């Protein structure tokens, strides 16, 4: 028995001493060990290929990867340097999105892109804390206000709403006083981006928000919410959601005979070819939408090459503007790397460590000024220290005979001050 007690005592002392030694290390803030230096520059991607937003994640992700294929294989990389792509699926799951961003840091990526605002929300703090810059393709105001390490490729969901309000007041509204608007929004950062902008800017724009109804990505009926909306008799319904729930709302609105008649508009998260496919040509006809890119097939410089790659590799996404957003995200990434290489060296950037991240942000992102994405969307500018939106313009579209038809040229999406 005595031997046993001595053995236990010695063991405990060893463990306690070990734990104290280890805890002493907590006072220091030394970062985790970096992987060995590798020659190519690596770019990380965190994409919601699966999960409840896969109908957007798939075309965007494939667009991104196809554009890199084009840059690496056809253009020979950037300044002759091939870029290595590291990508992971988030499954539209916040916990996985958080660990993915750390994995991309460990993998030695120079910066990363992330598709959805919900995934970006989960990754934001880790990126900000480590100083790891990222490009968010579909963004929400909460990601870039206050400004951190995340940059938004396109105007955010709040900007969509503001731009549509301006268009509506100038071109559609024929009544007197303030038009009454109802919001049907997704209960995550996609929808709340619209709600937050409406809270801040509705009065200034001259819009009366009569009700805000929330829904889930998995919704199969919005009859209840639309019945409440109908009771408020709004002039216009703005939907801030992804394609699947938006199609449910449009079908239910048709069943309740809200359409045709009431003006309905969608933000860019839901206004895509997938919406027409899901809701059907008849039901989606006449719906307005805001989108921050040109339409598929428009006569702009970058369209033929993108169309060629999409047709060759992912025929099912031809005509899908989400693919276009993914494609342009990679063109912007290439421009960021080009700028960073101009102001630094390949060896430094290829390390993918904290120093390289800082250079990527200061000498890469911030040096992108008025970059024309081959005409596929508005020019990209990240030089403003406060306004972290790259492109600042959108177009208003309307679905006519199953096609998204542009009603306007580029409309400025003014910066909304949230603080």
């Amino acid at each position, binding site marked *: 028995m005595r031997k046993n007690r001595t053995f236990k005592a010695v*063991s405990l002392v060893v463990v306690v001493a*070990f734990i104290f030694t280890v805890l002493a290390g907590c*006072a220091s*803030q030394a970062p985790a060990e970096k992987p060995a230096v590798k020659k190519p520059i690596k770019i990380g991607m965190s994409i919601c*290929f699966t999960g409840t937003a896969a109908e957007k994640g798939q075309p965007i992700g494939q667009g991104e990867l196809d554009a890199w294929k084009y840059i690496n294989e056809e253009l020979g990389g950037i300044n002759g340097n091939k870029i290595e792509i590291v990508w992971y699926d988030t499954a539209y799951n*916040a916990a996985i999105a958080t660990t993915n961003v750390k994995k991309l840091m460990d993998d030695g990526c120079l910066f990363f892109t992330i598709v959805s605002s919900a995934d970006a*929300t989960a990754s934001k703090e880790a990126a900000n804390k480590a100083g790891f810059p990222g490009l968010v393709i579909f963004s929400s105001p*909460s990601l870039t206000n206050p400004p951190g390490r995340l940059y938004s490729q396109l105007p955010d969901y709040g900007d969509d709403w503001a731009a549509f309000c301006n268009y509506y007041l100038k071109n559609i509204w024929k009544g007197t006083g303030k038009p009454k608007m109802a919001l049907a929004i997704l209960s995550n950062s996609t929808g709340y981006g619209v709600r937050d902008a409406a809270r801040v800017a509705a009065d200034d724009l001259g819009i009366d928000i009569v009700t805000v109804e*929330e829904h889930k990505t998995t919704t199969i009926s919005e009859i209840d919410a639309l019945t409440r909306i109908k009771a408020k008799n709004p002039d216009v319904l703005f939907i801030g959601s992804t394609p699947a729930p938006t199609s449910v709302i449009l079908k239910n609105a048709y069943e309740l005979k809200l359409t045709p008649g009431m003006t309905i508009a969608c933000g860019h998260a839901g206004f895509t070819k997938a919406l027409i496919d899901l809701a059907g040509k008849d039901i989606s006809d006449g719906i307005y939408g805001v989108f921050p890119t040109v339409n598929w097939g428009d006569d702009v410089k970058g369209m033929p090459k993108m169309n060629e790659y999409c047709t060759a590799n992912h025929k099912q996404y031809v005509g899908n503007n989400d693919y276009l957003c993914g494609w342009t995200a990679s063109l912007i990434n290439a421009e960021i790397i080009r700028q960073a290489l101009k102001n630094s060296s390949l060896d430094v950037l290829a390390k993918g460590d904290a120093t390289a991240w800082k250079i990527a942000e200061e000498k890469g992102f911030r040096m992108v000024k008025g970059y024309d994405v081959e005409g596929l969307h508005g020019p990209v500018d990240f030089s403003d220290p406060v306004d972290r939106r790259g492109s600042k313009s959108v177009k208003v579209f309307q679905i006519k005979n199953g096609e998204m038809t542009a009603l306007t040229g580029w409309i400025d999406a003014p910066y909304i001050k949230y603080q």
Partner: protein
Amino acid sequence: MSLPCGTRNYSYATDIAIIRTKTQWVMFIAFLLLIFSFPFYFPRFWLDVMNLIGITIIAIIGLNILVGYCGQLSIGHAGFMAVGAYTTAILTANFQIPFLLALLLSGIAAGLIGLLFGVPSMRVKGFYLAITTIAAQFIIIWIINHWTDVTKGSMGLGVDAASIGPLSFDSEASQYFLIISITALCVLFATNLARSRAGRAFIAVRDNDLAAEVMGINVFSYKLLAFFLGCFFAGIAGSLFAQWRGHITPEDFTFQQSILYIGILIIGGLGTSIGPIIGVVFIRLLEQFVTLLAPLVERSFPDIPSGFATGLSPMVFGLVMVVFLVLEPRGLAHRWNLFKASYRMWPFSY
């Protein structure tokens, strides 16, 4: 507790000890050394995964007390975690309360909210009680989304890194030590609770509440105690989650997560001490495995149709879960016990 042949009790102290034999002590010490040395050889990503595992273990331990031991089905556990997370965020940011106190208060706040939703357990049980806990999930998240003056709604709240005196837990490695230490304490508490008077009462209530009442157990108060403790652990897990993530929004605590937690507990093994740990480790590692699988498949087989590799991940995840439930319905804990038993008899089986 099953023990190796020849293990005898010479005193009450040895009878109640969790670790009994020299081999168990050696393995326990080796395990501790292994666990606490992880930060020296694992990169940031894996430490982060292990931090998430530690936090989830605490949450599942709470759910195990509620569902596994006491038989009160709860499908709103992520909501109770949200209470703990937001309590920590608000207390540390607005009132500068030290982390450890905020951690404790977060557990208590979640426990009290849990008590509130546990009251219907006096009248309803089974699936009907599950519905009330689903309501808890949605009500809590709705309040967080709409009480914007305090919670900042969808914008979320920033949470400073935890600190205890001069120790600051702001790196993955230091967070790991904090989370693993608190997880170990929670595991110890839950293991002992299961062997206490309250633990036995929980099991009696779970197995037959009428018989338990006839034996003199106050069923309602023990059900409430289970709700308090279960949600207390959820609050602690939420608090650690908040400081681990550094920024919380209502989207971090979804209904799908609550469902996943039930799944983890079933896969691990309901009503066992080891079940929650094995279940969490298995599911969290499986999540990471399927995340890494898709790019690997696409790189290895470039000619496969577009979208196949990414569609493979959820299929593998679902398939593995189904296979485990079919082959081992009593959970991985049962498989672990079978392994231990065969190891003890090796090489001479009876």
